[in-house]
């Protein structure tokens, strides 16, 4: 089993449609130290796809996406720079 790094920041974007979860992530990722993890909580299916795509475009790292018990995902992103 892989170890999940404890997020330094959790962004609650549940109930919000894309692109809002991505906008929130872009706004707040620099609030955590380098190499720290931000967790985006989202239930828009577009976010499940678009957060990793944003990471690829912005050269941050998509660590993993974990299903939430109440629906949606915790999408973990590591700040790379």
């Amino acid at each position: 089993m892989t170890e999940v790094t404890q997020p330094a920041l959790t962004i609650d974007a549940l109930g919000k449609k894309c692109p809002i979860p991505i906008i929130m992530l872009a706004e707040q990722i620099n609030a955590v130290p380098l190499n720290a993890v931000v967790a985006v909580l989202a239930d828009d299916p577009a976010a499940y796809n678009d957060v990793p795509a944003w990471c690829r475009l912005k050269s941050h790292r998509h660590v993993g996406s974990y299903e939430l018990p109440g629906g949606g995902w915790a999408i973990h992103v590591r700040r790379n720079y």
Partner: protein
Amino acid sequence: MAYFDAASSEPLHPQAREALLAAIDVGWADPARLYGQARRAHLLLEQARTEVAEALGARADEVSFTASGTQAVHLGVLGTLHGRRRAGRHLVVSAVEHSSVLHAAQLHERDGGTVETVGVGLTGRVDPATFAAAVARPDTALACLQTANHEVGTLQPVAEAAAACREHGVPLLVDAAQTAGRVPVPAGWSVLTASAHKWGGPAGVGVLVVRKGTRFRSFLPEDERERRRVPGFENVPAIVAAAAALRATAAEAAEEQARLSALVDRIRRTVPGIVPDVEVIGDPVDRAPHIVTFSCLYVDGEALLTELDRAGFAVSSGSSCTASTLRPSHVLEAMGVLTHGNVRVSLPRGASAAEVDRFLGVLPELVRRIRQDAGVT
């Protein structure tokens, strides 16, 4: 209004309009009957069949007309699976096929069949080796691959897929909806489907071509029309118009499609320089001549479509907010590219450089304003 949504529907070709008006007067009778008007309708229908067959690289007796491209795909997929029941019940499709293929596959699965979906890379192209490995499964009854993707334009490796299918004795259904009439149909298919309104014909005409020797059996109730492949009375005037449009479009294709492709290149090259945080999607070279798609970060796709409509541009989007399902496009998802802020530009015959330049002129300010309104700095 600049109409940039040819991938949804190409405007009616003037020669199709002319043919349609003429055929409405003389082609209304039942082509299966034996009196004068019926013989005339029959003649028109068979002439159209011969022309369409020639343009698609088929024999006339292999061509059946359907009520739409979607119906051609449904009948083609399920009829071939039905005809090959004894060979097996396994179906191979790419992840980026048109929804008509994927919906037929779902029905096959609900009916106890199996389906393997072959994924794509970032450009939306199927890996030929992966596709070949999938069709090697011994109980494979059918494989499906589009000529070009309808949302991002990327061409698929049909020739390689056809070679693999031939090696394993598996028929290949090729969905040529986006390229028929624009570029030559690649060789090697067993079943071919297309849609007339995508090449400048009227809506309500699809084409299902079943290569001689391919086992095929309609899964629908028995009907003697269209070689027992398609039930119901043919729309002869629309079929005549569809054939006229295909003939006209194919005749001017070499020149016109090269011109549209150069305009698409201009959009592909220019957009990343004038709009910050944008991703141009799909293969830049191996692509359909008329389609280009890009996604703008932090932009709501519906808002952008609305603004573009107001500015006089008809375009389409794969973003979820623009779909009735509220799910993003399965094509963009399979590619792993941004699904929000998505715009598909697909150029019809006659689209002008001036229109494209005007589009490139208004786009940056519209994107900037939408981002500003959303609080993106």
